[in-house]
């Protein structure tokens, strides 16, 4: 897509995300096939900015892992392990669905997948920190399912990168809310945005947003960078949440102001496909094991 196409696509998607129009109607699935980077980065950042959700993560993971389209079982919280394991003809699953259920769910193993009837599994609609995310926790064991081949590792990288972009959008929204408040809110006869202590918090949040965005964009060069990009995004979102909440102070602690929805979203998104804390430790452990840093980003 050229710049003009990108802009049109972004605006169509923005309306879809804001008004709950189907992604198919605005051509997002076609875009995913044509230009995966633009499709994923644009949609997930918009979802983050508008605190919206969808089943698009399923399509991203399925597309990369070679899974059929449908509802995909995502890994259990704070893990990137394949949600299904098969031992002696018995399939055990433990994972999460995002954005409602269908009659069947596709559960990946490390090198394949099985399609399962949801009625055979235990479901728990998740309220938790962010009920608006519409997660369903799914566990269970089924006999006799025969796996088809697929590649979970590629699905993990694609899911992590999409979530990194969604965290960027969420962070951007928190910074926007805090900035607007700082300019509007007056104390001591002037906007609190004029106080250096407030300005530096917002500047710090801006640095966090920008570094997460650059890391996510750079990770498209190589799926091996997806985990570190998600670690940057999760870490940055926590930084932005902390500063935004402090700048928004009392009103930001209420449900009358939208900030709390974004903070909740950031915390749960950080937990999907591995939190920044877990991923960071794994990246360190890997470097210690091999005595080599991950390959640097080429210029």
């Amino acid at each position, binding site marked *: 897509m050229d710049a003009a196409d990108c802009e049109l696509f972004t605006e169509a998607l923005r309306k879809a995300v804001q008004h709950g129009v189907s992604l198919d109607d605005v051509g997002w699935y076609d875009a995913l096939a044509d230009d995966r980077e633009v499709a994923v980065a644009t949609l997930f950042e918009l979802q983050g900015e508008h605190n919206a959700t969808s089943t698009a993560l399923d399509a991203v993971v399925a597309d990369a892992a070679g899974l059929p389209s449908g509802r995909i079982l995502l890994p259990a919280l704070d893990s990137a392990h394949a949600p299904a394991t098969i031992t002696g003809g018995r399939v055990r699953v433990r994972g999460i669905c995002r954005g409602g259920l269908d009659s069947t769910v596709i559960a990946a193993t490390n090198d394949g997948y099985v399609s399962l009837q949801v009625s055979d599994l235990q479901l728990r609609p998740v309220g938790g920190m962010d009920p608006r995310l519409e997660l369903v926790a799914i566990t269970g064991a089924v006999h006799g399912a025969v796996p088809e081949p697929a590649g979970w590792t590629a699905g993990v990288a694609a899911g992590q990168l999409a979530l990194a972009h969604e965290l960027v959008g969420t962070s951007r929204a928190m910074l926007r809310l805090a900035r607007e408040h700082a300019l509007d809110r007056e104390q001591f006869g002037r906007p609190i945005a004029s106080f250096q202590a407030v300005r530096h918090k*917002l500047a710090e949040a801006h640095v966090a947003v920008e570094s997460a965005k650059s890391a996510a964009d750079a990770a498209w060069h190589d799926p091996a960078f997806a985990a570190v990009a998600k670690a940057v995004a999760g870490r940055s979102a926590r930084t932005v949440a902390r500063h935004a909440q402090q700048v928004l102070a009392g009103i930001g602690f209420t449900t009358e102001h939208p900030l709390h929805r974004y903070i909740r979203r950031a915390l749960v998104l950080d937990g999907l496909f591995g939190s920044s804390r877990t991923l960071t430790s794994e990246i360190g452990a890997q470097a210690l094991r091999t005595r080599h840093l991950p390959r*640097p980003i080429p*210029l």
Partner: protein
Amino acid sequence: MQLDAFRRELDGWLDEHAAELARDASDGDGLDADMAQLAKVKQMTFDAGWMRWGWPQRVGGLGGSPLLRGYLGEALTARDLVEPGTYSMTEVLAPTMIDYARPELAAEMVPRLLRGEEMWCQGFSEPGTGSNLAALSCRAVRADDGWRVTGQKVWTSFAQFAQRCVLLARTGAPDSAHRGITALFVDMDAPGITVRPIETMHGRLEFCEVFFDDVLVPVERMLGEEGQGWSVAMDLLPYERSTSLWHRGAFLQQRLQHLLTDVADDSLSAAELGDVVVQLFALRARSRATQHRLAAGERLGPETSVDKVLLATTEQSLFDLVASAVADDVLTGDDAAGARWRSDYLYSRAATIYGGSAEIQRNVLARRVLDLGPES
């Protein structure tokens, strides 16, 4: 020349000439040795053509994208052939000369800098003006034969090695602030200049005080027009945060890999190491994007303060990790390895001070990028 081809061919050439390019151990490990090494590497890479790529032909370059310069410095730093602080003066000052010097002057001088025949310094800060650069008072008065400069500069890096200085001087009224500043290209051997090196905490004579006593600078050595010095300074700062910063990112990567290779098994925690790896990734991702904007001809501005904040934060995190992982070397080591880790650690403390302090960077972001209005 395309980046991929440049990378491949340069890597091959660096492998082939590794022995000649390597630091001569008999030079010792002081600043004099660093300078000799820098001059050698620049001369070899210039004569072989590498150093000329990415610079315009009118200053002795071979043309091509500035990304080629980005990769050259990265490759030299990754192989520990140059120290990025001394190498950076080229990336900061050559673009300024190209943009602002008379074409004949740029054509004469820039090749000397690129080839390592000369070292240049940057006379900006003064005892009375650190963060508040626009208040500088080193004075240049117009005389029949040129500008007569009188005043003092401080924190002038490598002035004791420099043949030239890009100097900011007050040519307007004392209270003319950023409007009354003019940039001059000064010969450091001109009568009336005195250089006094200052020993830093990390044990090097990194920077100097420079005194100007009625120093004559010919009119044709003005960079830009009279009163345009502030633009020169503002255009120079983003260069500090583009190519040079990419090189510094490569330096941090090289030092972290060095730590990982050297250190005992149980002295690094996976979480702490991972944290620095993650920060370094973000820094390099950001810096890469900036390099590509520069290469696409975009004008870099206050948004590069993001890059500077990330660099300073990452550099200090990395050397905090070093200080705990190789505490023996840093605290009590008197061999070369200990001296280097200690020097690097101590120097990293300045990362939030030089080139615009961490506070100034945040002020710039608040005012000019986030548009938060004036400070109270």
